[in-house]
């Protein structure tokens, strides 16, 4: 508890210090030559705060959520308050960090649904870019499996809830080394990332078991202007059951055209402990513009979970209003059914801001 308070105090001090530095740098820039002034854009919500010409940037996102379900107390919470801080040099060095505060404030928390007050280090890495086809990354980064995990921030996705197959079968972050970049293939960039993760995690999220060891690959291939296909493969073990050696294969798809979007992922995780520990899941989600910036969203998902063993089928029906690039409002009804015949319906709504 004391550790949490100290961390939060340090977090606030760093933020205040950086904002004050930003003010000073902005003032200095205003007094400089016209050319510099033109190249320093004013702050705009959703595009980060550039700290003058220092190469430092500050940004983040926050979201507030209201949820209500049968046989559960409704709750209103500040579900995420994340701060990005990064620095980039002209020579190709980049430092990026993200601190994730979850459920810092809530009227009621349901620990069974992962609603715990936590302050974790979501990302902390150093990039050294040699060319567009090779960047070396060291530190803690998002596990490149599928598509949702790489853009999971609330203002970036269409629904308040997250598809189970994108969260449950693998840790969302990895600590280790990665090589990433893109190659031109038929005039289109093929993105790749290859990574290894060693034992341990930097200030891990208590809601998930981190990688013990992992080696993986992710490819993203643009098929045409509207369609992208992804492929993920990883061999790994997780703490605390480090003897369970697992292989995960994933396929993902994104199609977007004139504001409409279809996104889907399928994963299969095979365990050395036998078929009873295997997991299999998929989701398919569509979003279409209904009126102006208002979108209708439907998602169907299925997941066979190993522990406790059950098969879950979810249907999500909702609306999302994207007021701007930075602000979005969402409401949805989630209907869940498992193989024991237990059905549940929940209502979720949220407002999220990218700053």
């Amino acid at each position, binding site marked *: 508890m004391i550790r949490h308070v100290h961390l939060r105090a340090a977090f606030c001090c760093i933020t205040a210090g950086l904002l004050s530095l930003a003010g000073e740098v902005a003032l200095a820039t205003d007094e400089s030559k016209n050319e510099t002034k033109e190249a320093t854009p004013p702050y705009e919500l959703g595009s980060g705060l550039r700290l003058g010409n220092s190469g430092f940037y500050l940004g983040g996102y926050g979201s507030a959520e209201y949820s209500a379900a049968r046989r559960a107390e409704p709750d209103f919470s500040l579900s995420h308050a994340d701060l990005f801080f990064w620095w980039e040099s002209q020579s190709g060095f980049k430092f990026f960090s993200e601190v994730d505060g979850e459920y810092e404030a809530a009227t009621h928390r349901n620990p069974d649904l992962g609603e715990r007050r936590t302050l974790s280090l979501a990302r902390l890495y150093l990039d050294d*870019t040699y060319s567009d086809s090779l960047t070396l990354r060291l530190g803690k980064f998002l596990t490149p499996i599928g598509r949702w995990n790489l853009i999971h921030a609330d203002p970036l996705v269409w629904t308040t809830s997250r598809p189970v197959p994108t969260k449950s079968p693998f840790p969302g972050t990895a600590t280790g080394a990665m090589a990433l970049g893109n190659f031109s293939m038929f005039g289109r960039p093929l993105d790749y990332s290859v990574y290894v993760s060693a034992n341990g995690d930097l200030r891990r999220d208590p809601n998930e078991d981190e990688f013990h060891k992992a080696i993986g690959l992710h490819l993203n291939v643009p098929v045409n202007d509207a369609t992208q296909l992804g492929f993920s493969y990883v061999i790994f073990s997780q703490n605390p059951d480090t003897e369970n050696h697992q292989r995960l294969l994933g396929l993902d798809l994104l199609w977007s055209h004139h504001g409409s979007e279809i996104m889907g992922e399928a994963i299969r995780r095979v365990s050395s402990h036998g078929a009873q520990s295997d997991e299999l899941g998929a989701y398919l989600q569509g979003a279409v513009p209904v009126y102006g910036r208002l979108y209708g969203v439907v998602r169907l998902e299925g997941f066979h979970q190993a522990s406790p063993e059950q098969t879950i089928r979810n249907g999500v029906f909702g609306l999302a209003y994207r007021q701007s690039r930075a602000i979005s409002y969402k409401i949805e009804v989630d209907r869940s059914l498992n193989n024991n015949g237990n059905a549940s319906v929940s209502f979720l709504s949220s407002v999220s801001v990218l700053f």
Partner: protein
Amino acid sequence: MPLSRRCALLLSTLLLGHLALAQGPPTQGIAVIMADGSTEPFLSIAKLALIFKRKQTFWANGQRIQPVNLPPAHPLRRAFSQQVFARSPEDLDDYWRDMYFHGVLPPFVLASEEAVIRFVATTPGAVGYVSPCVLDHRVTVVLRLYEGPACAHQPQ
């Protein structure tokens, strides 16, 4: 060659030259520009799309690319976006939202074509776009897009 054919060839050459001069510099379209003396003699549309999506960030000589945009409402920006990405600037919002999550920001936005020319001329590795009628000796054209708004300025 008979004299009459020589005369006809000379006349047609003079006529074509006169027509070309009368036409003057183009008054429509988009000129993609780099600093005068740039090492890149020509850019393709596919390469331009990679650069303005921040997928290609280095020139072949290892220098960092500095792309600059005009504001989203500027007619030239809208025409550039349609021709290079087949999308409007607003249609690319989702893309930039995702990239921002990874600490990648869209190209700088400069308020005017003159500001673009000044930035491109003085910044190593910079690339931008302007109307063909505002071009001058400070920059060199590496690609010409033929669709675009008519020039707001008189050709110089």
